[in-house]
């Protein structure tokens, strides 16, 4: 069974430096992610939230630093790292990034094709199960990504990232572009899946409601590094100007003072 002791570090980033030309995005960035938690990475536009995510999953080669995921050094040998890690992490990109020439079911089956001796009928059934687990109707499996709405595409992208039961999922702006009802439903979905599958979730977001409803811990990206990490309460106490503005702004207040406790609602369904 999976070990869920809270201090088991699954992602360890040390001294990360990313730069594009002379523009330095990250400098001396450190971050730890613990097993089983949902960590939300926030930061202003252009602070390199997505770049951090891309660095961790090996899509962006950093200028310096070390990244260790589940005991594997991602940067030491990208190819070997990919081979070991590809089935242990799943990535959901902003708009789902589904393959447009495949149906949703075929999209979900793509990662499963790397499993040796998995019979096609079981693969199909498992894909249907994953599609249903992310809350899509059965017949959505036969549709092509272009026939789905934005929210459904995100769900389908999540289903594909969960295809191999990864230990870590990376979500890039999971609720961006969704209506409030759809976003709340997606928050609940992430929380439930994370609990029932023992997932570690690394999510990049702008959405204060998501932070409030699902995240166990928050990492604030500013001034090229992770400025503070901690629970929502810690964030409210932090006195860095950007953090203050972010967590004490009018929208933040509205999110935190919302009458319905979305976190509880999420746990109940």
């Amino acid at each position, binding site marked *: *069974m999976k070990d*869920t002791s809270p201090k088991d570090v699954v992602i360890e980033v040390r001294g990360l430096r990313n730069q594009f030309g002379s523009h330095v995005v990250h400098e001396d960035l450190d971050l730890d992610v613990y097993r089983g938690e949902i960590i939300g990475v926030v930061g202003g536009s252009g602070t390199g939230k997505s770049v951090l995510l891309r660095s961790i999953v090996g899509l962006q080669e950093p200028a310096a630093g070390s990244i260790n995921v589940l005991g594997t050094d991602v940067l030491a040998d990208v190819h070997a790292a990919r081979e070991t890690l590809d089935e242990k992490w799943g990535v959901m990109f902003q708009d789902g990034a589904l393959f447009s020439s495949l149906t949703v079911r075929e999209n979900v089956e793509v990662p499963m094709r790397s499993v040796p001796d998995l019979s096609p009928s079981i693969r199909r059934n498992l894909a249907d199960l*994953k*599609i249903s687990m992310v809350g899509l109707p*059965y017949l959505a499996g036969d549709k092509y990504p272009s026939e789905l709405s934005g929210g459904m595409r995100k769900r389908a992208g999540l289903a594909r990232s969960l295809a191999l039961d990864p230990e870590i999922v990376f979500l890039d702006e999971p609720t961006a572009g969704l209506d409030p009802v759809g976003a709340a439903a997606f928050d609940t979905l992430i929380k439930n899946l994370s609990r029932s599958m023992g997932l570690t979730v690394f999510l990049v977001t702008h959405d204060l409601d998501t932070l409030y409803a699902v995240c166990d811990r928050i990492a604030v990206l500013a001034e090229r590094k992770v400025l503070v990490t901690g629970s929502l309460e810690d964030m409210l106490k932090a006195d860095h100007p950007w953090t203050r503005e972010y967590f004490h702004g009018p929208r933040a207040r509205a999110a935190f003072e919302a009458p319905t406790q979305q976190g509880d609602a999420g746990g109940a369904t």
Partner: protein
Amino acid sequence: MSQDLRHQLVHFDETDEGVLRLRGQLSIYTVSSAQERVARLDTQKDLTIDIGDLSRIDTAGAWLLCEIEAAGEAAGNRVTLQNVTGETATLLSSVKSAMPEKQVAVKTETGFAVLLHRLGEKVSAGTTFLLELTGYLGLFFVSLGRVIRHPSEFRFTSLVAHAEDVGYRAVPIVSLMAFLIGVVLAFQGSAQLRQFGAEVFVVDLIAISILRELGILLTAIIVAGRTASAFTAAIGSMKMREEIDAMRTLGLDPAVVLFLPRILALLFMLPILGLIANIMGLFGGALMAWIELGISPSMFRIRLIEGTDVSHVFVGLIKAPVFALIIGVVGCHAGMQVKSNAESLGRMTSNAVVTAIFTVIVADALFSIFFAQVGL
């Protein structure tokens, strides 16, 4: 670590009390073999499965357990799971509640009637396509009429930019192509005509075939490949990013803003390109005739002026505006058919090229018949 995940197995031990005990990992890597083993179980009696010794279970494993349960219930037996720990119970219950209900999508019929139906659909789609192309041609003329009445609406800068792209930048490739065609014609023609001692007629051969047909036809084909695809890609990607819709809400007519400058640029540039192709073709032919048959440039010139009527040039160039309209309309129409996915952009681009080249050749054949009938 992934390797040991992959190579772990699931074991089934049957105890004396009829309890099926699972060991190892029940995951996506072992679910296939586990299912084969499960299929051999006796379905006619109650079943107890002990999963306490499993080292790992994932959704695929939970799915299999749920399937066994469902199959047992369908046969009227009880399936009991033993030693379910807290976490596995959560996983099992969420998988169980998510087990999809199979729905049958609308079945596709087969048979002769369906084939006929498809044929009919194709024919009707073809007719619609032709009607739409005619519609776009009409749209072009209507917007042309509008900008003639309101010249301020016309995008002159855009016209010049497209003219540069469509015409000026195509000059090297068109020249090279026409030059080589002239060379080939002279070379092949001289080999044949030499047998009759009629070498000097190679000039007529080159001049008539290039001026009447090949110069403009091959130019149109190259421009169709180059420009129709560019029009489709440009307009199609604007359609994909909803730029066309944005234009409409801003009161801009895409026909005036996008189609008109493009098609007009082609209309002006294709005759010029055709003329360049004619000159380069004659030049290539003359060069080869000189090298191969010893027909000097001045002799080539005299023979050209004496033997070839100037009407051949007009017969050739009169086709250019028609070809330009075809290429432009097909390219713009295909661009507007692009849907919101990238795949349709690729498909429409290649469709545009194929349709444009095909239609240009059909139009050329019709011109040939027409000119033959009127005796030109």
